[in-house]
Every structure is written in C-alpha cells, then in structure tokens.
C-alpha cells in the first residue's frame, strides 16, 4: 500500500507506453503556452513584431485582431462598446473557443497555468494534503461579482487585480511588482488549497467554461472498461470531478464523453493512463454508447 502511495503519478504509464506517450499532451501544451508567449515577446525582445498587444487584445501581422471576450464584456457593461477591430477580435475568439472548448484557454494559452501546474506538481511531490475547502462554484460568484461590479463602478473591475493579465502584461510590458501577485497565486495553490486558483477562484476560467458549454471537442473515455482504478487520472486532473461521470458512469447510463464545461482539454488524463482509456474526440460520440446501453 505504502509503495503504491509513494508511486509517482503516471509512472505506470511511462512503463507501459514510454516517456513520450506518457507526456505527449503535457509537452504539446507547454509548447503551445511558450510559443504564444514567444510570439508576444518577439516584438519587445527582438524587434520582430509578429504580435502586438497582450492577451486582452492583440493584433497579429497587422491582420488578425483577437480580443479577450471577458475583458471586453466587463468594458461593455460599463457602457462602452469597443471599436470595429475590437469587436471583430472578440467574435473570432468567441467562435474559436465555442468550438474547441472554452477552458482550452486555461490549459493551452494562459501563462498562469504554468505557475499553478508547478504548484500542483510540487504540492504532490511534497505530499501536502488538506488545506482550506473552497467550493468550485466560488469562481462563478466572483465572475458575477466582477460583471455587476464593473457596471456599478464604471471600471473594468477584474483587470485591476487579475493575476493572469498582470503576469502576461508584466512579461511583455515590464513586470514591476506584478511578480508578487503571481507568487501569491503559487503559494496559495501550494499550501492553502489544491488547485485553488484555476479550479476554484479564477473568474477568467469561469467565463471560458461557460463559453465551452456546448463545444464539440472533448476528452472521452471510450475504453473505460479497461480502467484498473489506479486513480492516476483523478490525481493529475486539475478538475477531477469532471472525470467520474464519464469514466464511472456506465452503470447509470452515462456516456463516455467528459461533458463538464470545466474540463480544460489539457489531455493529462490521456497521458497518465497506462490502459489508454482516454482520447480526444467529439461530444457526439456520446450518443452511440448510451443508445447501445438501452
């Protein structure tokens, strides 16, 4: 028992599938995160202006506008409409995340994800357990508060303290004391609450989860019958509650598709599963198995 407890998450998968296939999605995700950052940094660091701006709004190759719909929405509830480029950028981003899943932003783009993943990894290695309990719905309350608050104060409220934009803007436009906010998020995730920031508090993620409510791109567990209950996927997942209905729901007539909008499509469960239970696919694959059950 103690041997199993001390075993690293995904060790079995590395043995069975090899290191690369047990880390594939993690590596691809890091490449995605760092490439996006590199595109933003190529301008200020090397004078190669491929992308200007930051995650709130960017303009790529003087052609492609991209606007963060959550920031724009806060601005809109204060009574200001963005210009055409801003609105176009917003539409493009909305359509993209409606298709691939809103929280793909969290796991494939957001720079804070690297910080909180590091905190989660370290927390696991140090064996830190427990901590304060914060409901996973807290973020939706904060999301609502920022929108109501923006309307009441006339200020884009969350941007005053948003660690996501502070880190990203800090890297591109000059960090100042923004690193302290990022450090607080890291320490909070490490010592106070497991996956506390991304999975419980962050209203940006909450907003994007609503965007991905009906997105077709999903993680599914088509081979769930092969599950050996090693629990590695639950351990590694930043939102473990999303896995159970798909992985263990067969008896209740549940399909194998992870339908929760809070699945970030990070693909770590696919990586760490030695039985290759999970895969990326489309949500429509859910119908087949439920039909065959009945």
């Amino acid at each position: 028992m103690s041997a199993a407890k001390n075993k690293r998450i995904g060790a079995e998968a590395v043995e069975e599938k090899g290191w690369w296939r047990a880390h594939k999605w993690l590596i691809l995700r890091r490449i995605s995160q760092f490439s996006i950052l590199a595109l933003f940094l190529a301008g200020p660091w090397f004078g190669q202006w491929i992308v200007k701006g930051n995650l709130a709004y960017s303009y790529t190759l003087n052609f492609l506008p991209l606007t963060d719909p959550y920031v724009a929405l806060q601005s809109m509830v204060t009574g200001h409409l963005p210009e055409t480029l801003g609105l176009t950028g917003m539409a493009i981003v909305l359509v993209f995340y409606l298709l691939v899943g809103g929280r793909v932003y969290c796991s494939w783009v957001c720079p804070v994800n690297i910080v909180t993943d590091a905190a989660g990894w370290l927390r696991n290695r140090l064996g830190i357990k427990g901590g304060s309990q914060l409901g996973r719905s807290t973020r939706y309350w904060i999301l609502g508060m920022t929108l109501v608050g923006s309307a009441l104060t006339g200020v884009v409220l969350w941007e005053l303290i948003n660690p996501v934009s502070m880190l990203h803007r800090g890297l591109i436009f000059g960090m100042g004391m923004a690193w302290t906010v990022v450090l607080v998020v890291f320490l909070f995730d490490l010592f106070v609450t497991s996956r506390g920031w991304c999975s419980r508090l962050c209203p940006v993620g909450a907003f994007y989860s609503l965007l991905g409510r009906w997105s077709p791109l999903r993680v599914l567990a088509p081979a769930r019958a092969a599950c050996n209950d090693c629990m590695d996927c639950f351990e590694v997942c930043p939102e473990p509650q999303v896995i159970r209905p798909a992985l263990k729901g067969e008896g209740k007539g549940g399909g194998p598709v992870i339908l929760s909008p809070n699945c970030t499509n990070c693909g770590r469960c696919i990586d760490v599963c030695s039985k290759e239970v999970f895969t990326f696919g489309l949500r429509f694959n859910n119908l087949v198995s439920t039909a065959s059950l009945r």
Partner: protein
Amino acid sequence: MIAKTPKSGAARRQFIFDSAKMVCGVGMLGLGLGLYAKQSKALPALALRPPGAMPEDDFLGACIRCGMCVRDCPYNTLELAKPETPVATGTPFFNARNIPCEMCEDIPCIKACPTGALDHSLTDINKAKMGVAVLIDHETCLNFLGLRCDVCYRVCPVIDKAITLDMVPNTRTGRHAMFLPTVHSEHCTGCGKCERSCVLEESAIRILPPKLAKGELGRHYRIGWDEKSRAGRSLIDESKMLDLPDRLPEGAVLPGHYDPASGHTESMRGMPGSEAGAISSLPPGLGGKP
C-alpha cells in the same frame, strides 16, 4: 414537485447557507475591489493620458489595457501602469518630464486603440487636450527672474499660440523688461515639451489636468469686449453711460480718461488698464504694475 421530506428541508437549508457564505465572501471581495476602483479613478496630477483619452471616469471603463497605444507610439512616450504605480493597473500614461508627447500628425496611438478609450474622432493632434501647461512657479522661473531663458516658449510645438512671451517692466531693476511665458489654454495640447525642457532642477512649468489647471466663469458671465467684437458694436448705448468725475488736480488733463460721452475712448488704447497692451507707451523703468 419534490415532497417536503426532512431531507429536502435540510438540503434546502444547506443550499441557503452555502449561498449566504458565497454572497458574503465574494461580496467582501467585491466591496474591496469597488473601493479600490473608486480610488484608482484619482489619477495623479502628473500622470497624463494619451491624446484623445476619454475623461478619466469613462476611460477606466473603456480601456481594456492591451497596450496597443504603447506599442504604436514611435517615441516610447507611453507606458502601461504597473501594479505599484499610482495609476489604474495596466492603463497607459506618460510623465511629461520623462518623455513628452511628440504630437505625431497621424496620431498612431489613437489609431491603434481597439476601444473608444482613445477617441477615434480626434484626427487633428492640435485639438488634443492631454492637459494644460501651467507656469506653476513664478519664484524660480528664470524669465520671472528677469533672464531670457525662453526654453519652454521655444520648444512649444504651438509656439506663439499656446505659449507667448508677454513683456512687462521689471520693477526690481526699474530699467529692464521681463518676458513672461504665458500659456493660452485654448491652444495648449498638454504635450509636455515645455515641462520636459524646463532647465530647472524641478520644472517650473507643468502639465496639469485641465480640471486642476482651469478656473471656470459663471455661465451667466459676459465678457464685454468679446461681446462687443462679436456684435460689431457695444451692447449698450455708450453715449448714455454714466461717467463719474475723476478726482484730478485742478486743471490737470488725464490722457485716455474714459469718458464715452466726450468721444475720447480711442485714446484709451495703450494706457494702463486697457486690454490692448499696457506697456508700449510707458517710459522704460517708470511703469508700475498696470
């Protein structure tokens, strides 16, 4: 509907308590944020917004903190506020004493703005109102000390309109003139080149927000000479103006004595108290302050 079992009652209680917990916790966070937002509206006097920026109250709602204006400014004038800067985090500003606005004719910062935070209808940079220059310290300004520094006047992109040198007698020496840099707010864009170039350790001329720099006349005030030039004639019948006798020594004549009834008004020009330039007719060194 679900029957009222003790279990559903307990669940409902739990739901209400959980919601109350959230409302209180998040409400406290919201209150703190709201007060912080309120404070962030108090832009420090020396932090200037880019040209075309909305009034501060609107700006903080319209600006999405993307930094496009910062990127497209060719002179690196603008920067985004860092969390420790006393300007709302992530919003663009500049400090004229560090790098002033060069007043580009095509105003690239406004063009880059994806929101209305920088007003796209501003196409003439000379109409920008980033602030108003104020010659704030008359005690250290070299021109007020009687020297011909003139630097703020020379660097002004709207020279002779936004800043003029107004000649007044130097009463300290009694024989020289002082050329006082004088700002005319209707032409000043607040670019800050004067503040940047002031040769003093601390600039004697500074860009202030118009709200701080400007007084405001009562709305019912009418300035007689403006009304007169607009109407092409005096709004009142000057021949019927009552002129009280001036107290003069016996037999003395006061040139320019204001006596509309006598028809001598024209000779008023150039005399003390006239708006048409008090200095030229004064003998050097003899003039007091008009």
